[in-house]
């Protein structure tokens, strides 16, 4: 099955093509085909996993070449798929969570007449994402990378009869593309230095390249990762991306596409190994985003935007871990997996809440939903406990390891990164608890026409499965270090380093901060009255509510000047460049007009001209002859 891994990509891709080409004729059954395609991909991935588990650790990776993409010459690229522990882990995450979300969407999108098209786009996304993680070269990865970008654009703008949603889709695509510049530059550097773009060759040769080259490549890859994973400074698109239907937010903007950046960094380990400065920058970016996301999440009243900020922050944790080097790679991926489960679960829960509340998103109008939607409350609650990092739920196992690894190292780094991660945990506890309590607890602050009820089975069953994962997956994967061992062929074996603070102290501090955060949120939002209108607030809160004015900065620094530049250039092109052409044409015309004056029509002036000419010729002859 491992060699048939291409089926995992082909099934959803074919399904998407069929659904798009058949059009309305497929409306009645199209969504089930979409679910089947996604499920089929999962089974292929599962088969590959079982086959791999049967092999000894060193032999698990399999690189299958399908056909030649770019033949010969300087650059030779094959369409090849690499099924190794890292990629199969992602494949399973994408297809498992993906299939659950497909099922959920059958009910969520039931009243939308374009449901079939939605499933086509979802399948397209799954196919592209699988290509991204299975590719064995940076070029093919880029194909998948852009593919998920397009799928994201199509899905965010699914309801593009609303102009704001179309704008949000554009914004996501454009900001992603800024990151793509980084990937193109990185490929250029790699081609120049190694003459190839596939992981195998680069893995072998990376040690021979200079640190400067590797650092440049690493920073370029980081730029790409920032764009796709909504890390600072390219994070502005994620909040707006919530314009898409909630299953989209769950699948793409929580579990999978936004994690592609982390995948890229971990996959590029050979490059980062030779570029410690680039690694530090990755960790710094992760730390900044971690904090930024948490602060923004504390002030958002829109449930989806709060969850989006949370995603940004959690990916910050993953980037921080990835930037710590081999020590952190496995934990970054571990957290990625657990986060995929609990964040997707919470997004689906939010969708369930929205479904019940007539598609409202303002948490200030929620409250006391635990009685009306028990299943949603329980599943969301499990996700909440997981993200807080409460033992024994999965978030505890993954996040705690990251915090511990952050405290490993020398000099200022372990203190800065470790403390940031630690405080971030406290902030996470606060804002996620705020979200949970505002939505499910306290007094009901509903608008008049709302009658909340539990969602249908097609929606609740996926939520339950994801909640179970949120609860137990961490424990299962952490027992006996089996997950870290599983990833070792890819991430390398790392000796255990001691953090600068004793592990017990770190764990204790984390749990204390988490408890403080949760309890603080309980008092402010669970027990106390939550105002239905957002109260006027301090400068800090206003800043957080406005995403730290990132959009305003972007508008002022890039968008407005950019528009001025284009307008000026259009004017200059017409006035100066084209003007020069037209002016010199007029110049010739004037010359012609001036020359016309010689043609007076007067016979006598012609005669005079002839005479003068004759005299000159004779003079020349006479003088020349002399």
């Amino acid at each position, binding site marked *: 099955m491992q060699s048939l891994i291409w089926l995992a990509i082909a099934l959803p891709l074919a399904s998407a093509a069929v659904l798009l080409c058949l059009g309305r004729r497929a409306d009645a059954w199209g969504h089930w085909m979409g679910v089947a395609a996604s499920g089929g991909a999962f089974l292929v991935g599962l088969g590959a996993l079982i086959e791999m588990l049967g092999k000894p650790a060193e032999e698990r990776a399999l690189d299958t070449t399908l056909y030649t993409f770019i033949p010969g010459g300087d650059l030779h690229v094959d369409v090849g798929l690499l099924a190794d522990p890292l990629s199969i882990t992602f494949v399973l995450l994408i297809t498992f969570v993906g299939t659950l979300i497909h099922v959920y969407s059958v009910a969520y999108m039931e009243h939308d007449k374009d449901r079939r098209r939605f499933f086509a786009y979802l399948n397209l996304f799954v196919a592209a994402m699988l290509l991204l993680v299975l590719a064995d070269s940076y070029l093919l990865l880029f194909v998948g990378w852009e593919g998920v970008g397009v799928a994201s654009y199509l899905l965010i703008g699914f309801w593009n009869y609303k102009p704001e949603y179309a704008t949000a889709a554009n914004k996501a695509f454009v900001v992603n593309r800024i990151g793509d510049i980084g990937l193109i530059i990185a490929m250029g550097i790699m081609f120049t230095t190694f003459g190839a773009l596939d992981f195998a060759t680069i893995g072998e040769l990376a040690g021979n390249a200079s640190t400067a080259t590797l650092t440049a490549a690493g920073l370029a890859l980081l730029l790409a990762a920032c764009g796709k994973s909504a890390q600072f400074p390219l994070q502005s698109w994620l909040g707006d991306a919530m314009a898409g239907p909630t299953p989209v937010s769950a699948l793409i903007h929580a579990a999978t596409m936004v994690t592609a950046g982390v995948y890229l960094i971990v996959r590029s380990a050979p490059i980062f190994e030779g570029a410690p400065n680039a690694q530090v920058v990755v960790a710094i970016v992760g730390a900044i985003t971690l904090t930024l996301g948490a602060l923004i999440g504390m002030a958002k009243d829109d449930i989806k935007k709060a969850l989006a900020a949370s995603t940004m922050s959690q990916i910050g944790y993953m980037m921080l871990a990835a930037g710590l080097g081999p020590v952190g790679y496995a934990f970054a991926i571990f957290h990625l997996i657990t986060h995929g489960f609990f964040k997707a679960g919470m997004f689906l829960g939010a969708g369930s809440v929205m479904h019940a509340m007539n598609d409202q998103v303002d948490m200030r109008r929620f409250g006391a939903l635990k009685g009306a939607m028990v299943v949603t409350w329980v599943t969301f609650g499990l996700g909440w406990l997981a993200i807080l990092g409460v033992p024994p739920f999965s978030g505890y196992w993954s996040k705690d390891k990251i915090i511990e690894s952050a405290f490993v190292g020398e000099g200022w780094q372990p203190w800065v990164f470790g403390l940031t991660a630690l405080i971030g945990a406290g902030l996470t506890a606060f804002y996620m608890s705020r979200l949970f309590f505002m939505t499910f607890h306290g007094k009901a602050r509903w608008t008049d026409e709302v009658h909340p009820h539990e969602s249908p089975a097609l929606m609740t069953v996926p939520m339950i499965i994801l909640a179970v994962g949120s609860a137990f997956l961490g424990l299962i994967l952490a027992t006996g270090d089996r997950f870290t061992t599983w990833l070792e062929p890819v991430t390398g074996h790392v000796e255990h380093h001691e953090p600068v603070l004793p592990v017990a102290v770190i764990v204790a501090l984390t749990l204390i901060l988490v408890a403080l955060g949760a309890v603080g949120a309980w008092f402010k939002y669970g027990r106390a009255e939550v105002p239905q209108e957002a109260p006027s607030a301090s400068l800090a809160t206003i800043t957080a509510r406005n995403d730290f004015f990132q959009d305003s900065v972007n508008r002022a620094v890039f968008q407005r000047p950019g528009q001025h530049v284009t307008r000026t250039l259009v004017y200059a092109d017409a006035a100066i460049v084209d003007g020069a052409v037209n002016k010199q044409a007029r110049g010739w015309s004037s010359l012609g007009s001036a020359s016309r004056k010689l043609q007076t029509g*007067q*016979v006598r002036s012609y005669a005079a001209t002839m005479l003068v000419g004759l005299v000159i010729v004779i003079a020349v002859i006479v003088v020349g002859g002399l």
Partner: protein
Amino acid sequence: MNPMNYVILAAILFSIGAAAVLLRRNAIVAFMGVELMLNAANLALVAFSRIHGELDGQIMAFFVMVVAAAEVVVGLAIIIAVFRARQTISLDEPAELKG
């Protein structure tokens, strides 16, 4: 009798004829200037023939006289045609070719 004097006379006659063509507006007077120029050329030719002692110049003078006669016929015909159309023999009036 110095033949060079005749050449100088020819030059003077030529200049007078040219001046007549350039300065007089009446077409017929301009034509007379053209005739004067032709005859000045004839005089020069004959004088040179005398100077070099050869007959070539005198023979060429005959050719010039024939050509002059033909040209007078055609030129006067054009002037009459223009007069019939325009009622004028001023050289300045017809400026149709003004560009």
